[in-house]
């Protein structure tokens, strides 16, 4: 048993190393397939990050009138926090609003001059409300309308939802559409990649049809014939994984700083190293799995001699 396994492994390695051109072609196709699979894995999470970043920016702001007492505002905050659809409520005082504005636009002389001209602090205290989902903003807005109509109406200057409503709805429609399109595209690309890799291996084995027949005629058992092909497929998968891993390491290393400039907070290199073992696993499973499954299916029909 052990001798047979050793012979199968040796034979698989010899076939792989002797037929350089075929091995290179198989590896190349597998590299493309593994590259695609890994890209899909990475882009899914990067896309998720971008979607949640965009969604984070959507909120309802309730602006309070000049001179509204802080304790009343905090009371409103508490009431709003109790609405089940509300994820968070953040109180931004007049001074915090001014400070944030100055911080954001300190390099813009026109805005800073305008602020000086206006004089004092023109900003209003506000509550920034976030819900769990886009569809829930309407419910939050309705609650505010009901509440405002009674006791707190005098405190509130305006509710900035109806102005932003189309933008918020569009963002959520877009992000949800992106998610669905991403999944569909991933499935289509994965199927294409698997079919291409499978057919390449099948054609490679078709070349060796006569050889398989001779092996059968000299009394080799099915496993003694199949084994080396499976080993060959697995070796191609391992080589393709190593090549792909190197390519991804280089891409993530070089592009990470540039991507971070474009999308603040998105560090691809950190994500890559953080998920290094998951990525290796995905690549190995794709590579070896493709090699072994394709070999098994392709050889099957030639073994009936």
């Amino acid at each position, binding site marked *: 048993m052990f001798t047979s396994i050793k012979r199968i492994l040796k034979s698989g390695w010899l076939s792989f190393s002797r037929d350089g051109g075929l091995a290179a072609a198989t590896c190349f196709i597998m590299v493309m397939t593994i590259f695609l699979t890994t890209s899909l894995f990475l882009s899914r999470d990067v896309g998720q990050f971008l979607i949640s970043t965009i969604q984070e920016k959507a909120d309802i702001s309730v602006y309070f009138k000049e001179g509204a007492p802080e304790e009343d505002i905090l009371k409103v905050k508490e009431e709003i926090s109790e609405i089940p659809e509300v994820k968070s409520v953040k109180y931004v005082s007049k001074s915090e609003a001014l400070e944030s504005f100055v911080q954001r636009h300190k390099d813009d002389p026109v805005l800073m001059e305008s602020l000086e001209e206006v004089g004092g602090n023109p900003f209003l205290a506000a509550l920034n409300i976030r819900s769990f989902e886009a569809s829930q903003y309407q419910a939050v807005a309705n609650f505010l309308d009901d509440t405002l109509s009674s006791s707190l109406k005098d405190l509130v200057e305006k509710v900035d939802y109806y102005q932003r409503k189309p933008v918020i709805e569009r963002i959520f429609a877009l992000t949800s559409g992106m998610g669905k399109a991403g999944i569909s595209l991933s499935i289509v690309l994965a199927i294409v990649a698997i079919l291409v890799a499978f057919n390449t291996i099948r054609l490679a084995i078709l070349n060796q049809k006569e050889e398989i027949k*001779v092996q059968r005629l000299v*009394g080799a058992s*099915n496993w003694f014939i199949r084994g080396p092909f499976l080993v060959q497929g697995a070796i191609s998968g391992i080589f393709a994984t190593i090549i792909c891993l190197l390519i991804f390491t280089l891409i993530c290393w070089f592009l990470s700083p540039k991507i971070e400039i474009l999308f603040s907070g998105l560090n691809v290199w950190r994500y890559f190293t953080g998920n290094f073992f998951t990525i290796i696993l995905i690549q190995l499973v794709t590579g070896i799995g493709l090699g072994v499954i394709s070999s098994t299916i392709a050889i099957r029909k030639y073994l009936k001699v």
Partner: protein
Amino acid sequence: MVKLQAVTKIFLPNILALENVSFEIKPKEFVSIAGKSGAGKTTLLRILLVEEKPTKGRIFFDGQDLSKIELARLPQLRRKIGAVFQDYKLLPSKTTYENIAYVMEVIGATEEEIARDVNQVLEIVGLERRTKNFPAELSAGERQRAAIARALIHRPDVILADEPTGNLDPYNALDIIRLLLKIHELGTTVILATHNKEIINSLGKRVITLEEGRVIRDEERGRFVF
């Protein structure tokens, strides 16, 4: 050892390759199957190797009915047979040594047995200097000698040789026939299919003559007659 009972083989749609062929070959016999091209010699050998199944009739090898043998049991049967083909059928990606060792590996021989027997048989067929060459680097005669070495390395009960001299010049052809005779002298049954008149006449052994798929002559010390 080998017994055919009314074997008929029809290739679709309507090519009659063998018709009602019956004969028996005893252990340690040397039998030539003679006939023109297309007479059915190769089909007969392919049926004995279970590459083809007969349309009608039965074939027995050591008492085992080959027309009913399961696919999973074929390797065991074929390990009792050594086959030599006109087109050699060596494994192109293996060296001469590996081609011959492959059969030993298949039957589960140890590395020591393989090293000892392969070198010995390579010496017998005169290929001891070609061990590391691939089939493409050998001459036609050398390839056929390698094929014979592969056929006899595991000491099979019977050797089937299908036109083994078909692609060789007279000198190499004679070498191959001498090798087959030597193997036969050592106690192996040999079934040789050929249309070479000189070879058959020089052997002075049993000849079964086929014509259009039928046995027309079966003589103990036969000659090539048409």
